[in-house]
């Protein structure tokens, strides 16, 4: 069971930094397909912001920000998002992960591909975030 760090300097700085890191992480995810960044990198940053809170505030006090029980479902949801985005085009005549065939009315193919990959990147970010936090929580509790 991780406990709260004794120094108020540490806890305050962590509480200030964590949302900023998360914000930057969202930027990284959104820009992944166009400039350095992407789902995995953004996901790791999001996990870093959560883990910073865990380490500074301890398991109990950081729980409101990210309850440990949320981690595994979040990871699975992220992966499902990715997989479903891949499978839906199959039913509409395209190949697996063929974003051009996603069911969004009136959008041209390049735009669909552009957004298709964005959805996938978000899925990846969620999956990575959830998995990293889940692993950390398990190891910190000593469950393995």
């Amino acid at each position, binding site marked *: 069971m991780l406990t709260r760090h004794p120094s108020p300097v540490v806890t305050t700085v962590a509480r200030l930094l964590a949302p900023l890191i998360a914000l930057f992480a969202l930027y990284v995810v959104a820009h992944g397909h166009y400039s350095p960044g992407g789902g995995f990198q953004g996901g790791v940053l999001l996990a870093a912001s959560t883990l910073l809170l865990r380490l500074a505030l301890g398991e109990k006090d950081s729980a409101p920000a990210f309850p440990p029980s949320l981690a*595994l*479902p979040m990871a*699975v949801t992220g*992966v*499902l998002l990715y*997989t479903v985005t*891949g*499978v839906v085009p*199959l039913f509409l005549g*395209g*190949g*697996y*992960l*063929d*974003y*051009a*065939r996603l069911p969004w009315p009136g959008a041209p193919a390049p735009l669909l591909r552009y957004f298709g990959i964005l959805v996938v990147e978000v899925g990846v970010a969620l999956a990575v975030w959830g998995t990293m936090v889940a692993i950390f929580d398990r190891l910190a509790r000593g469950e393995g």
Partner: protein
Amino acid sequence: MAHLPVLVPVAYLLASFLSVLGGLWRDRLGYGIALGGAAAAALVSLWGLLLVLRQGTVHSFLGGWPPPIGIEYVLDPLAAFLASLVSALGVVALVYARPSVAREAPEKALLFYPVALLLLAGLTGIVVTGDLFNLFVFLEIASLAAYALLATGKGLSPLAAFRYLILGTIGGSFYLLAVGFLYFTTGSLNMADVAERLPPLYESRAVLAAAVFTVVGLGLKMALFPLHLWLPDAYTYAPSAVTGLIAPVMTKVMAYALIRILLGVFGLTYGVEVVPLLPVIGWLAMGGVLVGSVMAIAQTDVRRMLAYSSVAQVALVALGVALANPLGLVGGLLHILNHAFMKGCLFLVAGGVYYRAGVWGVAQYAGLGRRMPWTMGAFTLAALAMIGIPPTAGFFSKWYLVLGGIDAGHWPAVGVVLASTLLTAAYFFRVLEGVYTREPVPEVAAVGGSEPPLGMLVPTWVLGGGVLLLGLGNVLIVGRVLEQVARDLVGG
């Protein structure tokens, strides 16, 4: 159905994640989804096999991007054959797993099924992909799932899994290095494309490096002698349901990867004339057959005996490949199929015996012939097949291997296959003698020991009966599927 190849691993992936969610909600739901997913994947694979045999190879491009830019999935007769094998065994193993895991590792039940599905996703992915890097990804997915599953046992199980992890990661990383060399010299990751671009580059040292790293890397993954050291410990300490799932298929899929890359990408001429890779593999294989079989004789724990036996069997497959002629390759491929059923049945029997009698030792199997006639019947059938007695399946794969050896004029190979028959007989008759002629040891007599539950007995007999059926039907299998595959890869 142009997108069939991709569906198999995707079905497993979806089922795995839904199974986790379902299992978090209701215990049985997780298992139900897992079993349903495995069954669906098996049906798709079998359908794919029939489709491919009738219409020819199916190609599928990920995201609609054609090769060589995109990632291509290829379902040809060999891939369909293996995918069907892996997924069918997956269903059998999952049915067996429910009571077995409850007995041996009940606290791991929630995550067991999703991880098992991930393993199957990885293995089938390796089989159907046509992209070198994609193969690496699936290779590691399967390996990771295997490390996790193999660690769920008691005693030395986590350490055995850890050592497998270290050696397996070296193997996977070497393969990745090989892919790097191939990409930098040919500019492509698509298997068919690289195969076309490679011949002018045969003399290059980078290609040589790629070939060597591929052989060593995949050799580690498939436990080819002398890179087999992780296998005995890993198979001995893991729960029976895990070995029942992994032992029949994992090393064989790795052998398939080696076949696909060495013969399909580098080409037969490379492995024989440019660099003597296939002969080297042949000698290592012969060593593996002998060492594995001899070590098996020395074991007192049934699981460890079966593990060393598996080392020998994978070496037989490698020998078939190394002979570089159609007969030998048919023998090797047929042995992949046969061994999956034989070894799977044997490990399931071991788990069944533990379920009721709580013992793993060869000496303690005494007298079980009368207490567990059905279980031991399956064991006997599988053992006879392993030795190679007609009309069981094992006879036919060894028959083709011997023919291949004669065809290549390689008498040591023929000798080794025949020797393996004798050695296998040695370690199995030791067990059978105790089972049928001796009285049960005190600890078994005290516990009782009747047949294991139907949930375990039925899968055991599906595999055991399959051994006989495969033997009787081997003409069909070889004629319709394997001969075509062998001709495509090594000419005829």
